[in-house]
């Protein structure tokens, strides 16, 4: 099908509908408002559920309820709103419930700003809720990749019975780019949701309970270990990444989201100058794509992390690197998207040349 020009937030909303989203619960916050606005109009056309909740806290608990009842559920928010949802996300992970969460990231801490940021990296990959749990998280680059992942996310969430987050910076939410929403995307074989507490105990012949409470210590540890096994499976199977011109690179930039796109421009410029630079682009933020780092060539003596936050992803790069290569960091914050020129200058400095 021909591509259509859509605003990021609206495209994500439509992608959710196409991904089989049954219900949306959300609360207004900039810069993600076009997601609920779009769905408030269009979900009805598909006979699906839209509720504007009284708060992010209520919204995520509606998601928890609807997911527990077996529905494919979406919520969207932006950084401070995601912070409020963390409790509910922990409950969903603990109760093994699937849901898709869109996070259109803005500046922080606190109220921060409404401009694009990647300052939620820790919040996205570590979570703010209590307990040992993980949320499978994506940090896509283009609008096409974003909508493809939103459509797949419902399957992935159902497969693992775990929340999945799509984390994009505010720019991706606000910009318009042509997208194809009917292209082929991978489908997963999903078991029936025979665990759902949906008010069909009579039909089912047994009652179902959705709970994260395990009062006996042995029982809870067993549950924790079962969850861990699932997270290990995600680490094994779900690492996604892209490597661009890394084969002969002397220096590899690690960047995701909009920053990765900017870095692509940087690579073009610097390659013309004879600087061998490549890009390692994490697509999954959790699990962090460790496997990609194993594939880097010997020639890559240095890794430069570039992010719209002050060293959050860099910590993961550090952990994965285990002291093997030299590390450098360049970050912008406050809602500023780093320009290609400033990143290029940073690379020139690192390889010993002088800024152009």
């Amino acid at each position, binding site marked *: 099908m021909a591509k259509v*020009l859509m605003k990021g937030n609206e495209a994500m909303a439509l992608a959710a509908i196409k991904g089989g989203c049954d219900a949306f619960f959300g609360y207004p916050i900039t*810069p993600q408002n076009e997601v609920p606005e779009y769905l408030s109009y269009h979900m009805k056309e598909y006979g699906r559920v839209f509720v504007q909740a009284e708060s992010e806290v209520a919204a995520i608990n509606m998601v928890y309820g609807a997911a527990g009842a077996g529905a494919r559920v979406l919520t969207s928010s932006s950084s401070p709103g995601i912070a409020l949802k963390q409790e509910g996300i922990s409950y969903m992970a603990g109760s093994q419930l699937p849901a898709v969460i869109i996070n259109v990231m803005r500046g922080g801490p606190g109220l921060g700003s*409404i401009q694009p940021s990647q300052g939620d990296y820790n919040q996205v990959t570590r979570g703010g809720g209590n307990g040992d749990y993980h949320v499978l998280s994506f940090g896509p680059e283009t609008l096409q990749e974003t909508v493809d992942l939103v459509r797949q996310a419902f399957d992935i969430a159902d497969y693992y019975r775990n929340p999945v987050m799509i984390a994009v910076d505010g*720019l991706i939410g606000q*910009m*318009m780019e042509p997208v194809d929403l009917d292209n082929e995307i991978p489908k997963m074989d999903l078991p029936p949701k025979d665990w759902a507490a949906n008010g069909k105990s009579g039909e089912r012949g047994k009652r179902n309970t959705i709970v994260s409470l395990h009062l006996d210590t042995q029982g809870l540890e067993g549950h924790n270990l079962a969850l861990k096994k699932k997270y290990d499976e995600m680490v094994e199977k779900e690492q996604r990444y892209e490597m661009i011109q890394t084969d002969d690179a002397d220096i590899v930039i690690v960047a995701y989201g909009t920053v990765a*796109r*900017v870095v*692509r*421009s940087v690579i073009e410029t610097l390659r013309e100058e004879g600087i061998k630079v490549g890009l390692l682009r994490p697509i999954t933020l959790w699990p962090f794509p460790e496997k990609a780092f194993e594939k880097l060539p010997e020639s890559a003596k240095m890794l430069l992390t570039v992010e719209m936050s002050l060293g959050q992803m860099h910590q993961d790069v550090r952990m994965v690197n285990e002291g093997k290569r030299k590390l450098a960091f360049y970050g912008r914050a406050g809602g500023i998207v780093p320009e290609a020129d400033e990143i290029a200058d940073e690379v020139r400095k690192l390889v010993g040349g002088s800024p152009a």
Partner: protein
Amino acid sequence: MAKHEQVIVAGFGGQGVMLMGQMLAYAATNEGLNTVWIPSYGPETRGGTANCSIAISDKMINSPVVTRPDSVVALNLPSLEKFEPKLKKDGLLIVNDAAIKDYEYRDDVRLITIDANKEALALGNLRVANMIMLGAYIQATGIFKKDAIIEVFKKTFSGDKAKLMDINVKALETGMKLAA
């Protein structure tokens, strides 16, 4: 012909700069080109200056952020002052100089000035000044033919807005004529 163009459109909120930029992105999409439209967003767009950037290319668009535009379309003085310095050397600068007097423009760019307010009022509606600027832009760059924009108009000015079609087409043509 290889196409690669980065343009910033800026003016007061309410002058229709966002819409003008979107027209370019829609036209690009219709022609199968890659394009990214990025708005300034938030409180600054309420009554203050608003701007959007559009990248159009027949190749994959890497950085979606336009920092060194090939063209700047400025509809007021603050926008001119803000974006003229970012314009590439030999770039295209189109200015609605309705309320701009004694400005010293850069001499290393291609300058087109139009009193778009006066021209729009002559057509009967100040609000079509943006489409006059759009006409001037496509004429000066040759990036799209008039028909490509008319196609976009057909979708934008449909239903309740169909009555706005004629005046917007006239505005587009006026801009094209003035930039020819």
